[in-house]
């Protein structure tokens, strides 16, 4: 008993120190987000104060009202919702097929396909802006939401295929085989066994696709000309002008934009890392 006492005291001290460090890490990562929300609630006069208050003094929703009063804001929210929804649904369907092929089949050119999928991620987006614009014009999809969805689809796919591959590979083959022995065809075995078990992966991957489509700025900026078609990130740039930035409204708008993503992230965060890691460590 006695010899363990100092050791457990030392261990407690160590745990306390590490917890403190952990809290510091959490504070550093949460602070900018907190600061965004705090600024959004700070009245106009207080924002530019030389001594910032760490919590809003006499909080106001004036900045939020300003954002909500703009009809173009709601238009942008609608556009973003359509773009994001379409990107997520299409990306999941296409990526699941590919993930299945890579995780469950041997076929000629598989290594090449996997390498190519990784490779396309290396192409700098800035380099692709002009040619993608030209290509979309060729097929009559410039300045269109459809063109934007197709573009996002291409950017989501590499990561989505990779992640889903991990989830599919994590489903034991024996389960599928058992279903097939029991008389299911390959398609039925997939639908009844693999699909339900891959669902967490699909959710996690769709969050990734959602974040990309909801937050993307560069391509939306170049591909969409008409203000009617702008997505939320584009709409937000209205608050940044050459005369200065309306940080109150910008932070209020940003808070509204970030909110749906934060909620989804918190809901599915347990599954998020699974796909990247599945099979990568054990293999």
């Amino acid at each position, binding site marked *: 008993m006695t010899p363990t006492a100092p050791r457990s005291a030392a261990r407690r001290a160590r745990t306390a120190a590490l917890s403190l460090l952990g809290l510091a890490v959490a504070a550093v*990562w949460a602070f900018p987000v907190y600061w965004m929300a705090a600024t959004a609630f700070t009245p106009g006069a207080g924002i530019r104060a030389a001594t*910032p208050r760490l919590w809003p003094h006499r909080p106001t929703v004036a900045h939020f009202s300003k954002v909500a009063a703009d009809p173009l804001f709601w238009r942008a929210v609608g556009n973003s919702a359509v773009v994001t929804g379409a990107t997520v649904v299409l990306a999941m369907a296409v990526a699941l097929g590919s993930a299945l*092929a890579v995780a469950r089949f041997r076929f000629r050119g598989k*290594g090449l396909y996997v*390498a190519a999928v990784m490779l396309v991620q290396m192409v700098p987006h800035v380099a692709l802006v002009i040619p993608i614009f030209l*290509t979309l014009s060729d097929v009559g999809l410039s300045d269109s939401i459809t063109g934007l969805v197709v573009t996002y689809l291409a950017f989501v796919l590499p990561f989505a295929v990779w992640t889903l591959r991990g989830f599919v590979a994590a489903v034991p083959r024996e389960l599928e085989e058992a279903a097939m*022995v029991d008389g299911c065809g390959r398609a039925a075995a997939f639908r009844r066994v693999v699909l339900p078990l891959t669902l967490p992966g699909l959710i996690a991957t769709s969050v990734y696709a959602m974040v990309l489509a909801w937050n993307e700025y560069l391509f939306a900026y170049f591909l969409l000309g008409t203000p009617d078609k702008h997505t939320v990130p584009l709409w937000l740039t209205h608050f940044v002008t050459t005369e200065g*930035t309306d940080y109150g409204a910008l932070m209020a708008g940003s808070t509204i934009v970030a909110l749906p993503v934060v909620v989804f992230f918190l809901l599915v965060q347990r599954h998020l890392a699974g796909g990247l890691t599945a099979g990568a460590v054990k293999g």
Partner: protein
Amino acid sequence: MTTPEAPARARSRVLEPPSRRRTDRTPYLLVAPSVLVLLGVLAYPLGKVVVLSFQHWGVGQIFGARGPAFVGTDNYTALLSDPQFRTVLLRTVMLTAAMAGLSMAVGTAVALLMRQVPGWCRVAITCALVLAWSVPTFVSTEIFAWMTEYNSGVVNWALGMQPHNWYADATQGLAVATAVVVWGAVPLIAVTLYAGLAQIPAELLEAARMDGAGAWRLLRSVVLPLLRPLLALLTTLSVIWDFQVFNQIWILRQGAPGEDYYTLGIYSYVKAYAGHDYGLASAAAVLTVLLLLGVMVVHLRQIAKIGDTP
């Protein structure tokens, strides 16, 4: 006597024929849509970039007066003999090293820390990371711009140095950009590595501990080697993402970065749009891709291997 073999044979009879007997078309049908999209939206435009890089494209070509003319490797020669391009290239490489290096180091440290702290603390860290993860780069860059604002930036206030202009000196300005990137990249890295750590069998660690391995030795000889594939993947992705960093610098400088802020991405963008020299900008883009390829070849093989083992 045949019991152990019978199920295996039965299984192979049920399962193997469809994929072995003749060339199975299923996998090709399954990958076809993604191949189509990737070819149409990425490969075809990329091919266009390569062609453009061998052409002279200026204002005259854009407005259709004259067609583009092939000029051989003129664009590449012009680029490589331009001292500004060399400075930009060096800056991009250093910035990438700093961003990716810091992201990986901090991400790994946070993942290891998450293994050591009590549950409530881990939940706090996870929530903070997830919060940071879900913020769009556009938004996070604006937040950091606001936090480092000349007069009322909270960072200046906390450091007791207000007013302070972070952007007068490009080194400081790029340090802010690095902070935005690292802050945004650490959550993915930390959460993924944490999940990877959780997959390491406890017996393996226990056995090493029984053999007298200390914490440091355990980390170096057992944990990190097991995480190698994952670390390689995350490093590769970080380098790819950070090498093309654009948004953060562009937005921090409000769409008008000085030459001290040019990275390869911004350089080719400015050349293309302000200079209307698409040929030169495309050549810069092609060189960027080739450079990344050169760096990545080693890792790509490892990644292709992971992807190949189902």
